[in-house]
Protein backbone atom coordinates (compact mmCIF):
# COMPACT_ATOMS: atom_id res chain seq x y z
CA UNK A 1 0.00 0.00 0.00
CA UNK A 2 2.21 2.76 -1.25
CA UNK A 3 1.26 6.02 0.31
CA UNK A 4 2.59 7.97 -2.61
CA UNK A 5 0.27 6.39 -5.14
CA UNK A 6 -2.38 8.75 -6.38
CA UNK A 7 -5.62 7.87 -4.66
CA UNK A 8 -9.00 9.35 -4.37
CA UNK A 9 -10.09 10.01 -0.85
CA UNK A 10 -12.46 7.39 0.46
CA UNK A 11 -10.68 4.61 -1.35
CA UNK A 12 -11.66 1.71 0.81
CA UNK A 13 -9.84 -1.53 1.38
CA UNK A 14 -11.45 -4.26 3.44
CA UNK A 15 -9.47 -6.63 5.59
CA UNK A 16 -10.62 -9.27 8.00
CA UNK A 17 -11.43 -7.04 10.90
CA UNK A 18 -10.78 -3.63 9.55
CA UNK A 19 -11.86 -1.22 6.91
CA UNK A 20 -9.02 0.90 5.59
CA UNK A 21 -10.04 4.24 4.21
CA UNK A 22 -7.72 6.60 2.41
CA UNK A 23 -8.31 9.80 4.26
CA UNK A 24 -5.50 12.30 3.71
CA UNK A 25 -4.07 13.03 0.24
CA UNK A 26 -0.34 13.66 0.01
CA UNK A 27 -0.61 17.44 -0.37
CA UNK A 28 -2.68 17.72 2.80
CA UNK A 29 -0.30 15.51 4.76
CA UNK A 30 2.73 17.48 3.62
CA UNK A 31 1.01 20.79 4.31
CA UNK A 32 0.08 19.56 7.78
CA UNK A 33 3.61 18.63 8.84
CA UNK A 34 5.25 21.66 7.23
CA UNK A 35 2.71 23.74 9.10
CA UNK A 36 3.66 22.03 12.37
CA UNK A 37 7.30 23.03 11.86
CA UNK A 38 6.39 26.58 10.81
CA UNK A 39 4.01 27.20 13.70
CA UNK A 40 6.45 25.85 16.31
CA UNK A 41 9.25 28.10 15.03
CA UNK A 42 6.91 31.07 14.59
CA UNK A 43 5.67 30.63 18.16
CA UNK A 44 9.12 30.36 19.72
CA UNK A 45 10.70 33.15 17.70
CA UNK A 46 7.57 35.24 18.25
CA UNK A 47 7.96 34.93 22.02
CA UNK A 48 11.61 35.98 21.60
CA UNK A 49 10.40 39.10 19.77
CA UNK A 50 7.75 39.74 22.41
CA UNK A 51 10.42 39.58 25.12
CA UNK A 52 12.12 42.65 23.61
CA UNK A 53 9.17 44.74 24.78
CA UNK A 54 6.92 42.55 26.89
CA UNK A 55 3.87 44.79 26.94
CA UNK A 56 0.74 45.08 24.82
CA UNK A 57 -1.41 48.11 24.10
CA UNK A 58 -4.55 49.14 22.24
CA UNK A 59 -4.57 51.82 19.56
CA UNK A 60 -1.98 53.21 17.15
CA UNK A 61 0.72 54.13 19.65
CA UNK A 62 1.95 52.65 22.91
CA UNK A 63 0.65 54.06 26.20
CA UNK A 64 3.71 53.08 28.15
CA UNK A 65 2.42 53.74 31.65
CA UNK A 66 -0.90 52.01 30.97
CA UNK A 67 -0.27 48.76 29.09
CA UNK A 68 -3.13 46.34 28.51
CA UNK A 69 -0.86 43.41 29.27
CA UNK A 70 2.65 43.53 30.71
CA UNK A 71 5.01 40.81 31.84
CA UNK A 72 7.54 42.24 34.27
CA UNK A 73 9.61 41.47 37.30
CA UNK A 74 10.08 43.42 40.49
CA UNK A 75 11.11 43.01 44.08
CA UNK A 76 8.75 42.37 46.95
CA UNK A 77 9.10 44.33 50.19
CA UNK A 78 11.42 41.71 51.66
CA UNK A 79 13.69 41.96 48.61
CA UNK A 80 12.71 38.75 46.84
CA UNK A 81 12.52 39.01 43.08
CA UNK A 82 9.29 37.88 41.48
CA UNK A 83 7.72 37.67 38.05
CA UNK A 84 4.45 39.41 37.37
CA UNK A 85 1.81 39.31 34.67
CA UNK A 86 -0.54 42.25 34.69
CA UNK A 87 -3.69 42.36 32.62
CA UNK A 88 -5.77 45.53 32.52
CA UNK A 89 -4.23 46.69 35.79
CA UNK A 90 -4.57 43.43 37.76
CA UNK A 91 -1.36 41.59 38.64
CA UNK A 92 -0.63 37.92 39.10
CA UNK A 93 2.56 36.41 40.56
CA UNK A 94 4.06 34.13 37.91
CA UNK A 95 7.57 33.67 39.30
CA UNK A 96 9.41 30.80 37.62
CA UNK A 97 7.27 30.92 34.51
CA UNK A 98 6.65 34.45 33.30
CA UNK A 99 8.57 37.61 34.13
CA UNK A 100 11.23 35.84 36.17
CA UNK A 101 12.66 32.45 35.33
CA UNK A 102 15.90 30.53 35.56
CA UNK A 103 18.50 31.15 32.89
CA UNK A 104 21.57 28.94 33.32
CA UNK A 105 20.54 28.42 36.94
CA UNK A 106 20.18 32.13 37.69
CA UNK A 107 16.77 33.75 38.27
CA UNK A 108 16.55 36.21 35.42
CA UNK A 109 14.04 38.91 34.55
CA UNK A 110 12.59 37.67 31.30
CA UNK A 111 9.00 37.72 30.05
CA UNK A 112 8.95 34.23 28.54
CA UNK A 113 11.45 31.67 29.84
CA UNK A 114 14.43 30.70 27.71
CA UNK A 115 13.24 27.13 27.07
CA UNK A 116 10.39 28.38 24.93
CA UNK A 117 12.09 31.18 22.98
CA UNK A 118 14.16 30.96 19.81
CA UNK A 119 17.02 31.70 20.24
CA UNK A 120 17.02 30.61 23.87
CA UNK A 121 19.07 33.62 24.99
CA UNK A 122 17.87 37.19 24.45
CA UNK A 123 18.57 37.95 20.78
CA UNK A 124 15.88 39.96 19.04
CA UNK A 125 17.76 40.20 15.74
CA UNK A 126 18.04 36.43 15.28
CA UNK A 127 14.51 35.90 16.56
CA UNK A 128 13.22 38.22 13.85
CA UNK A 129 15.16 36.37 11.17
CA UNK A 130 13.67 33.04 12.22
CA UNK A 131 10.24 34.60 12.41
CA UNK A 132 10.23 36.16 8.94
CA UNK A 133 11.83 33.20 7.17
CA UNK A 134 9.27 30.81 8.59
CA UNK A 135 6.47 33.29 8.05
CA UNK A 136 7.28 33.02 4.36
CA UNK A 137 7.31 29.22 4.56
CA UNK A 138 3.98 29.33 6.42
CA UNK A 139 2.40 31.59 3.79
CA UNK A 140 3.63 29.58 0.80
CA UNK A 141 2.59 26.32 2.44
CA UNK A 142 -0.80 27.77 3.32
CA UNK A 143 -1.36 29.00 -0.24
CA UNK A 144 -0.55 25.56 -1.69
CA UNK A 145 -2.94 23.99 0.83
CA UNK A 146 -5.72 26.44 0.00
CA UNK A 147 -5.33 26.21 -3.79
CA UNK A 148 -5.27 22.42 -3.65
CA UNK A 149 -7.99 22.19 -1.04
CA UNK A 150 -10.39 24.48 -2.84
CA UNK A 151 -9.55 23.15 -6.31
CA UNK A 152 -9.98 19.51 -5.36
CA UNK A 153 -13.08 20.10 -3.26
CA UNK A 154 -11.23 18.62 -0.28
CA UNK A 155 -11.62 21.71 1.81
CA UNK A 156 -15.40 21.81 1.42
CA UNK A 157 -15.78 18.07 2.05
CA UNK A 158 -13.47 18.08 5.03
CA UNK A 159 -14.31 21.33 6.76
CA UNK A 160 -17.85 22.39 5.92
CA UNK A 161 -20.44 20.52 8.00
CA UNK A 162 -23.09 18.69 6.00
CA UNK A 163 -26.79 19.30 6.59
CA UNK A 164 -27.33 16.31 8.86
CA UNK A 165 -24.30 17.29 10.89
CA UNK A 166 -25.79 20.69 11.70
CA UNK A 167 -28.92 18.94 12.96
CA UNK A 168 -26.80 16.70 15.15
CA UNK A 169 -24.81 19.54 16.66
CA UNK A 170 -26.32 19.15 20.12
CA UNK A 171 -25.63 15.45 20.41
CA UNK A 172 -22.14 15.95 18.96
CA UNK A 173 -21.35 18.35 21.79
CA UNK A 174 -22.70 15.86 24.35
CA UNK A 175 -20.63 13.03 22.85
CA UNK A 176 -17.49 15.18 22.88
CA UNK A 177 -17.98 16.14 26.51
CA UNK A 178 -18.15 12.48 27.47
CA UNK A 179 -15.18 11.69 25.19
CA UNK A 180 -17.13 9.22 23.08
CA UNK A 181 -15.93 9.34 19.52
CA UNK A 182 -17.85 8.39 16.38
CA UNK A 183 -17.33 4.87 15.21
CA UNK A 184 -18.04 2.92 12.06
CA UNK A 185 -19.45 4.74 9.07
CA UNK A 186 -19.65 8.02 10.98
CA UNK A 187 -15.90 7.91 11.67
CA UNK A 188 -15.21 8.25 7.96
CA UNK A 189 -15.82 11.97 8.03
CA UNK A 190 -14.85 14.61 10.56
CA UNK A 191 -17.58 15.24 13.08
CA UNK A 192 -19.30 18.59 13.16
CA UNK A 193 -17.28 20.09 16.05
CA UNK A 194 -14.07 18.95 14.44
CA UNK A 195 -15.06 20.52 11.12
CA UNK A 196 -16.08 23.80 12.74
CA UNK A 197 -12.88 23.98 14.78
CA UNK A 198 -10.68 23.32 11.76
CA UNK A 199 -12.71 25.83 9.76
CA UNK A 200 -12.20 28.52 12.40
CA UNK A 201 -8.45 27.80 12.46
CA UNK A 202 -7.96 27.55 8.70
CA UNK A 203 -10.27 30.36 7.60
CA UNK A 204 -10.10 32.52 10.71
CA UNK A 205 -7.17 32.30 13.09
CA UNK A 206 -4.33 31.55 10.67
CA UNK A 207 -5.28 34.29 8.15
CA UNK A 208 -5.73 36.63 11.11
CA UNK A 209 -2.17 35.88 12.23
CA UNK A 210 -0.91 36.78 8.78
CA UNK A 211 -2.96 39.98 8.58
CA UNK A 212 -2.05 41.22 12.05
CA UNK A 213 1.58 40.33 11.35
CA UNK A 214 1.59 42.32 8.13
CA UNK A 215 -0.23 45.17 9.86
CA UNK A 216 2.85 45.66 12.05
CA UNK A 217 5.10 46.25 9.02
CA UNK A 218 5.67 49.97 8.36
CA UNK A 219 6.36 49.12 4.71
CA UNK A 220 3.10 47.25 4.24
CA UNK A 221 1.34 50.02 6.14
CA UNK A 222 2.48 52.48 3.45
CA UNK A 223 0.74 50.29 0.89
CA UNK A 224 -2.52 49.47 2.68
CA UNK A 225 -3.81 50.88 5.97
CA UNK A 226 -3.98 47.39 7.50
CA UNK A 227 -3.58 48.57 11.11
CA UNK A 228 -6.88 50.43 10.80
CA UNK A 229 -8.65 47.06 10.42
CA UNK A 230 -7.67 46.28 13.98
CA UNK A 231 -7.80 49.76 15.49
CA UNK A 232 -4.13 50.67 15.08
CA UNK A 233 -0.72 49.03 14.95
CA UNK A 234 -0.50 48.36 18.67
CA UNK A 235 -3.96 46.79 18.58
CA UNK A 236 -2.82 44.61 15.68
CA UNK A 237 0.17 43.51 17.77
CA UNK A 238 -2.14 42.71 20.70
CA UNK A 239 -4.51 40.74 18.45
CA UNK A 240 -1.50 38.90 16.99
CA UNK A 241 -0.56 37.87 20.52
CA UNK A 242 -4.10 36.90 21.57
CA UNK A 243 -4.68 34.82 18.43
CA UNK A 244 -1.34 33.10 19.10
CA UNK A 245 -2.81 32.07 22.47
CA UNK A 246 -5.91 30.69 20.75
CA UNK A 247 -3.73 28.71 18.35
CA UNK A 248 -1.75 27.24 21.23
CA UNK A 249 -5.04 26.30 22.89
CA UNK A 250 -6.19 24.70 19.64
CA UNK A 251 -2.99 22.66 19.35
CA UNK A 252 -3.31 21.44 22.95
CA UNK A 253 -6.90 20.31 22.41
CA UNK A 254 -6.05 18.88 18.99
CA UNK A 255 -3.17 16.79 20.33
CA UNK A 256 -5.23 15.65 23.33
CA UNK A 257 -8.07 14.49 21.10
CA UNK A 258 -5.62 12.76 18.76
CA UNK A 259 -4.30 10.88 21.80
CA UNK A 260 -7.75 10.03 23.13
CA UNK A 261 -9.30 8.98 19.84
CA UNK A 262 -6.49 6.64 18.81
CA UNK A 263 -2.97 7.98 18.59
CA UNK A 264 -1.55 5.39 16.19
CA UNK A 265 -4.51 5.38 13.86
CA UNK A 266 -4.54 9.17 13.65
CA UNK A 267 -0.80 9.40 13.29
CA UNK A 268 -0.75 6.73 10.60
CA UNK A 269 -3.52 8.62 8.86
CA UNK A 270 -1.56 11.87 8.75
CA UNK A 271 1.68 10.07 7.79
CA UNK A 272 0.48 7.56 5.17
CA UNK A 273 -3.02 8.74 4.42
CA UNK A 274 -4.68 5.52 5.57
CA UNK A 275 -7.12 5.49 8.44
CA UNK A 276 -8.60 2.37 9.95
CA UNK A 277 -12.15 1.80 11.06
CA UNK A 278 -12.57 -1.29 13.19
CA UNK A 279 -14.95 -3.74 11.57
CA UNK A 280 -16.92 -4.57 14.70
CA UNK A 281 -18.22 -1.07 14.53
CA UNK A 282 -19.28 -1.33 10.90
CA UNK A 283 -22.69 -2.35 9.79
CA UNK A 284 -22.85 -5.85 8.31
CA UNK A 285 -21.07 -5.76 5.02
CA UNK A 286 -23.09 -7.32 2.22
CA UNK A 287 -21.49 -10.52 0.99
CA UNK A 288 -19.38 -10.88 4.06
CA UNK A 289 -20.72 -14.12 5.49
CA UNK A 290 -17.96 -14.95 7.84
Amino acid at each position, binding site marked *: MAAGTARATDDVVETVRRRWTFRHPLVIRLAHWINVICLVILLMSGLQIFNA*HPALYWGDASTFDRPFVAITDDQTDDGTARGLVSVAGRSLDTTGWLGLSNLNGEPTGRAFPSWITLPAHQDLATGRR*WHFLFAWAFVINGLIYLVYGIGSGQLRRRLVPQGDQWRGLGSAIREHLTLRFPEGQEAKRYNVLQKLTYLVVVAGLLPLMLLTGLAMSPGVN*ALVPLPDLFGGRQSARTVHFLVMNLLVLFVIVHVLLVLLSGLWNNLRGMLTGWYVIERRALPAVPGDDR
Partner: protein
Amino acid sequence: MKPRLTTPAPHRRGFLAAAAGLLGAATLGGCDRLATTPWGRRALRAGEDANLFVQRLLLTPAALAQEFPDSAISPWFKPNGTIDPQDRDYRALAARRFEGWSLRVDGLVERPQGFSLADLRALPARTQTTRHDCVEGWSAIGRWTGVPLAELLTRAGLKPEARFIVFHCADTMEFAESDAPDSANPDMTVRPEGAENQASDSKAAGAEAPDADAPKGRPIRYYESIDLTDAYHPQTILAYDLNGQALPVSNGAPLRLRVERQLGYKQAKYVMRIEVRDTLAGIGDGGGGYWEDRGYEWYAGI
Protein backbone atom coordinates in the same frame (compact mmCIF):
# COMPACT_ATOMS: atom_id res chain seq x y z
CA MET B 1 -15.71 -9.66 0.34
CA LYS B 2 -12.26 -11.11 0.17
CA PRO B 3 -9.63 -9.39 2.17
CA ARG B 4 -7.18 -7.79 -0.22
CA LEU B 5 -4.60 -6.87 2.24
CA THR B 6 -2.71 -8.09 5.15
CA THR B 7 -2.50 -5.79 8.08
CA PRO B 8 0.67 -3.71 7.95
CA ALA B 9 2.66 -3.35 11.10
CA PRO B 10 1.30 -0.26 12.76
CA HIS B 11 4.01 -0.50 15.38
CA ARG B 12 6.66 0.11 12.80
CA ARG B 13 4.81 3.17 11.57
CA GLY B 14 4.32 4.30 15.12
CA PHE B 15 7.98 3.89 15.79
CA LEU B 16 8.81 5.91 12.70
CA ALA B 17 6.45 8.63 13.83
CA ALA B 18 8.01 8.75 17.26
CA ALA B 19 11.45 8.84 15.68
CA ALA B 20 10.35 11.70 13.46
CA GLY B 21 9.06 13.52 16.52
CA LEU B 22 12.32 13.06 18.37
CA LEU B 23 14.26 14.17 15.35
CA GLY B 24 12.07 17.26 15.16
CA ALA B 25 12.71 18.09 18.79
CA ALA B 26 16.44 17.56 18.36
CA THR B 27 16.43 19.79 15.29
CA LEU B 28 14.67 22.53 17.21
CA GLY B 29 17.15 22.21 20.03
CA GLY B 30 19.86 22.55 17.39
CA CYS B 31 18.24 25.65 15.91
CA ASP B 32 20.38 27.94 18.02
CA ARG B 33 23.54 26.19 16.91
CA LEU B 34 22.37 26.16 13.30
CA ALA B 35 21.86 29.91 13.41
CA THR B 36 25.51 30.45 14.28
CA THR B 37 26.92 28.55 11.29
CA PRO B 38 27.72 30.59 8.18
CA TRP B 39 25.27 28.49 6.20
CA GLY B 40 22.57 28.92 8.81
CA ARG B 41 23.06 32.67 8.94
CA ARG B 42 22.85 32.93 5.18
CA ALA B 43 19.68 30.81 5.12
CA LEU B 44 18.07 32.91 7.84
CA ARG B 45 18.72 36.03 5.78
CA ALA B 46 16.54 34.72 2.97
CA GLY B 47 13.50 36.13 4.78
CA GLU B 48 14.93 39.65 4.64
CA ASP B 49 15.71 39.26 0.93
CA ALA B 50 12.13 38.18 0.29
CA ASN B 51 10.75 41.09 2.34
CA LEU B 52 12.89 43.59 0.45
CA PHE B 53 12.03 42.08 -2.92
CA VAL B 54 8.27 42.06 -2.34
CA GLN B 55 8.07 45.46 -0.66
CA ARG B 56 10.18 47.06 -3.39
CA LEU B 57 7.94 45.40 -5.97
CA LEU B 58 4.79 46.82 -4.41
CA LEU B 59 5.86 50.13 -2.86
CA THR B 60 6.05 52.99 -5.33
CA PRO B 61 7.44 56.42 -4.42
CA ALA B 62 3.80 57.44 -4.12
CA ALA B 63 3.19 54.91 -1.34
CA LEU B 64 3.33 57.14 1.72
CA ALA B 65 3.63 56.04 5.30
CA GLN B 66 0.39 56.61 7.14
CA GLU B 67 0.06 60.14 8.50
CA PHE B 68 -2.01 60.98 11.54
CA PRO B 69 -4.02 63.93 12.83
CA ASP B 70 -2.28 66.04 15.47
CA SER B 71 -4.73 64.69 18.03
CA ALA B 72 -2.97 61.32 17.70
CA ILE B 73 0.43 62.70 18.75
CA SER B 74 1.88 60.74 21.67
CA PRO B 75 2.11 62.82 24.86
CA TRP B 76 5.64 61.46 25.32
CA PHE B 77 7.81 60.48 22.38
CA LYS B 78 9.87 57.71 23.94
CA PRO B 79 13.57 58.38 23.32
CA ASN B 80 15.50 55.19 22.72
CA GLY B 81 19.04 54.10 21.95
CA THR B 82 21.41 56.92 22.85
CA ILE B 83 19.45 59.58 24.70
CA ASP B 84 22.27 61.82 25.93
CA PRO B 85 25.57 61.52 24.04
CA GLN B 86 28.53 61.98 26.34
CA ASP B 87 31.01 62.70 23.56
CA ARG B 88 32.81 65.88 24.61
CA ASP B 89 32.49 67.70 21.30
CA TYR B 90 28.83 66.87 21.02
CA ARG B 91 28.23 68.19 24.53
CA ALA B 92 30.03 71.37 23.59
CA LEU B 93 27.83 71.73 20.53
CA ALA B 94 24.69 71.06 22.52
CA ALA B 95 25.75 73.56 25.18
CA ARG B 96 25.82 76.33 22.61
CA ARG B 97 22.62 75.11 21.00
CA PHE B 98 24.46 73.85 17.92
CA GLU B 99 25.65 77.28 16.92
CA GLY B 100 28.54 76.86 14.50
CA TRP B 101 27.47 73.29 13.77
CA SER B 102 27.07 72.27 10.18
CA LEU B 103 25.94 69.15 8.40
CA ARG B 104 28.53 67.94 5.95
CA VAL B 105 27.39 66.35 2.67
CA ASP B 106 30.21 64.65 0.81
CA GLY B 107 31.36 61.45 -0.84
CA LEU B 108 30.24 60.74 -4.38
CA VAL B 109 28.78 64.19 -4.98
CA GLU B 110 29.68 66.91 -7.45
CA ARG B 111 29.56 69.73 -4.89
CA PRO B 112 30.48 68.67 -1.33
CA GLN B 113 29.15 71.26 1.07
CA GLY B 114 28.01 72.05 4.57
CA PHE B 115 24.63 73.20 5.84
CA SER B 116 24.16 75.11 9.07
CA LEU B 117 20.89 74.77 10.98
CA ALA B 118 19.87 78.17 9.57
CA ASP B 119 20.65 76.94 6.04
CA LEU B 120 18.55 73.84 6.60
CA ARG B 121 15.64 75.80 8.02
CA ALA B 122 15.74 78.13 5.00
CA LEU B 123 15.27 75.22 2.60
CA PRO B 124 11.84 73.86 1.61
CA ALA B 125 10.41 71.98 4.57
CA ARG B 126 8.03 69.08 5.05
CA THR B 127 5.96 68.44 8.15
CA GLN B 128 4.53 64.99 8.77
CA THR B 129 2.78 63.38 11.71
CA THR B 130 3.85 59.77 11.57
CA ARG B 131 4.11 56.67 13.68
CA HIS B 132 7.55 55.59 14.80
CA ASP B 133 7.73 51.79 15.05
CA CYS B 134 10.55 50.46 17.17
CA VAL B 135 12.01 47.07 16.30
CA GLU B 136 11.19 46.08 19.89
CA GLY B 137 7.49 46.40 19.15
CA TRP B 138 6.30 49.70 20.59
CA SER B 139 5.09 52.74 18.64
CA ALA B 140 4.96 56.49 19.23
CA ILE B 141 3.43 59.21 17.09
CA GLY B 142 5.16 62.53 16.53
CA ARG B 143 5.02 65.50 14.20
CA TRP B 144 8.32 65.98 12.41
CA THR B 145 9.45 69.02 10.47
CA GLY B 146 12.56 68.92 8.37
CA VAL B 147 14.17 69.25 5.01
CA PRO B 148 13.61 66.49 2.47
CA LEU B 149 16.84 64.58 1.97
CA ALA B 150 16.27 64.89 -1.79
CA GLU B 151 16.71 68.69 -1.47
CA LEU B 152 20.19 68.25 -0.06
CA LEU B 153 21.18 65.55 -2.51
CA THR B 154 19.98 67.64 -5.45
CA ARG B 155 22.04 70.60 -4.22
CA ALA B 156 25.13 68.46 -3.80
CA GLY B 157 24.57 66.62 -7.11
CA LEU B 158 25.03 62.86 -7.06
CA LYS B 159 27.75 61.29 -9.14
CA PRO B 160 26.62 58.45 -11.42
CA GLU B 161 28.17 55.75 -9.18
CA ALA B 162 26.16 56.88 -6.15
CA ARG B 163 24.03 54.08 -4.67
CA PHE B 164 23.87 54.49 -0.91
CA ILE B 165 23.48 57.38 1.51
CA VAL B 166 25.39 56.82 4.75
CA PHE B 167 24.61 58.79 7.91
CA HIS B 168 27.43 59.37 10.37
CA CYS B 169 26.26 60.27 13.85
CA ALA B 170 27.76 61.90 16.93
CA ASP B 171 26.88 59.31 19.57
CA THR B 172 29.37 56.66 20.63
CA MET B 173 27.69 53.29 21.03
CA GLU B 174 30.71 51.34 22.24
CA PHE B 175 34.49 51.26 22.04
CA ALA B 176 36.21 48.87 19.69
CA GLU B 177 39.06 46.91 21.19
CA SER B 178 41.65 47.82 18.61
CA ASP B 179 42.89 51.27 17.79
CA ALA B 180 42.99 50.48 14.11
CA PRO B 181 42.53 53.55 11.96
CA ASP B 182 39.88 51.68 9.98
CA SER B 183 36.95 53.29 11.71
CA ALA B 184 33.25 52.82 11.25
CA ASN B 185 32.86 56.53 11.44
CA PRO B 186 36.22 57.98 10.48
CA ASP B 187 35.57 61.61 9.82
CA MET B 188 33.69 62.69 12.86
CA THR B 189 34.39 66.15 14.06
CA VAL B 190 34.19 64.81 17.59
CA ARG B 191 37.16 63.27 19.40
CA PRO B 192 36.75 60.58 22.02
CA GLU B 193 37.34 61.59 25.58
CA GLY B 194 39.03 59.10 27.85
CA ALA B 195 36.79 59.36 30.86
CA GLU B 196 33.51 59.66 29.06
CA ASN B 197 30.91 57.02 28.80
CA GLN B 198 27.82 57.00 26.69
CA ALA B 199 24.24 56.90 27.74
CA SER B 200 23.22 54.10 25.50
CA ASP B 201 19.96 52.51 26.45
CA SER B 202 21.19 48.97 26.34
CA LYS B 203 17.65 47.71 26.17
CA ALA B 204 17.44 49.26 22.71
CA ALA B 205 18.32 46.06 21.01
CA GLY B 206 20.15 43.99 23.50
CA ALA B 207 23.46 45.83 23.38
CA GLU B 208 25.88 45.61 26.21
CA ALA B 209 26.59 49.03 27.62
CA PRO B 210 30.37 49.45 27.57
CA ASP B 211 32.06 49.08 30.88
CA ALA B 212 33.23 52.45 32.17
CA ASP B 213 36.38 50.90 33.64
CA ALA B 214 37.34 49.03 30.48
CA PRO B 215 40.26 50.43 28.53
CA LYS B 216 38.81 52.63 25.86
CA GLY B 217 39.59 51.88 22.25
CA ARG B 218 38.38 53.48 19.10
CA PRO B 219 34.84 54.81 19.55
CA ILE B 220 32.18 53.26 17.36
CA ARG B 221 29.61 55.93 16.71
CA TYR B 222 26.15 55.28 15.34
CA TYR B 223 25.89 54.95 11.58
CA GLU B 224 23.08 54.06 9.25
CA SER B 225 22.44 53.83 5.53
CA ILE B 226 19.62 53.80 3.01
CA ASP B 227 19.58 53.39 -0.74
CA LEU B 228 18.47 55.94 -3.31
CA THR B 229 14.91 54.57 -3.45
CA ASP B 230 14.35 55.57 0.15
CA ALA B 231 16.60 58.63 -0.06
CA TYR B 232 14.35 60.27 -2.65
CA HIS B 233 11.06 59.23 -1.07
CA PRO B 234 9.02 62.38 -0.32
CA GLN B 235 8.68 61.49 3.38
CA THR B 236 12.42 60.95 3.87
CA ILE B 237 13.45 64.08 5.72
CA LEU B 238 16.14 65.32 8.05
CA ALA B 239 14.06 66.56 10.93
CA TYR B 240 15.04 69.52 13.09
CA ASP B 241 11.68 69.95 14.84
CA LEU B 242 9.57 67.51 16.85
CA ASN B 243 5.99 68.53 17.64
CA GLY B 244 6.68 72.14 16.69
CA GLN B 245 9.71 72.49 19.01
CA ALA B 246 13.40 72.27 18.25
CA LEU B 247 14.38 68.61 18.37
CA PRO B 248 15.44 67.75 21.95
CA VAL B 249 18.79 66.07 22.60
CA SER B 250 17.04 62.88 23.70
CA ASN B 251 15.38 62.59 20.31
CA GLY B 252 18.47 63.34 18.24
CA ALA B 253 19.28 67.09 18.18
CA PRO B 254 20.23 68.88 16.07
CA LEU B 255 19.12 66.65 13.21
CA ARG B 256 17.71 63.18 12.79
CA LEU B 257 16.74 61.11 9.82
CA ARG B 258 13.14 60.07 9.20
CA VAL B 259 12.65 57.12 6.81
CA GLU B 260 9.02 56.58 7.57
CA ARG B 261 8.50 53.26 5.83
CA GLN B 262 11.10 51.55 7.98
CA LEU B 263 11.66 50.74 11.66
CA GLY B 264 13.07 53.00 14.36
CA TYR B 265 16.73 52.01 14.22
CA LYS B 266 16.92 53.37 10.65
CA GLN B 267 15.96 56.84 11.97
CA ALA B 268 19.54 57.90 12.78
CA LYS B 269 19.85 60.58 15.47
CA TYR B 270 22.60 63.17 15.98
CA VAL B 271 23.39 63.16 12.23
CA MET B 272 26.69 64.99 11.63
CA ARG B 273 27.63 63.96 8.15
CA ILE B 274 25.98 62.49 5.09
CA GLU B 275 28.25 60.47 2.86
CA VAL B 276 27.21 59.31 -0.61
CA ARG B 277 28.77 55.97 -1.53
CA ASP B 278 28.72 53.27 -4.16
CA THR B 279 28.98 50.44 -1.64
CA LEU B 280 28.42 49.75 2.04
CA ALA B 281 31.67 47.81 2.24
CA GLY B 282 34.23 49.69 4.31
CA ILE B 283 31.63 51.16 6.66
CA GLY B 284 31.75 49.26 9.94
CA ASP B 285 31.49 45.56 9.11
CA GLY B 286 29.74 46.29 5.83
CA GLY B 287 26.19 45.62 7.01
CA GLY B 288 25.21 49.24 6.46
CA GLY B 289 24.51 50.29 10.02
CA TYR B 290 25.45 49.90 13.67
CA TRP B 291 22.61 47.47 14.38
CA GLU B 292 22.88 45.85 10.96
CA ASP B 293 26.46 44.89 11.83
CA ARG B 294 24.99 43.26 14.94
CA GLY B 295 22.51 41.05 13.12
CA TYR B 296 19.55 43.30 12.38
CA GLU B 297 18.13 43.62 8.88
CA TRP B 298 19.43 46.38 6.65
CA TYR B 299 15.98 46.57 5.12
CA ALA B 300 13.74 47.29 8.08
CA GLY B 301 10.38 47.61 6.33
CA ILE B 302 8.87 44.87 8.49
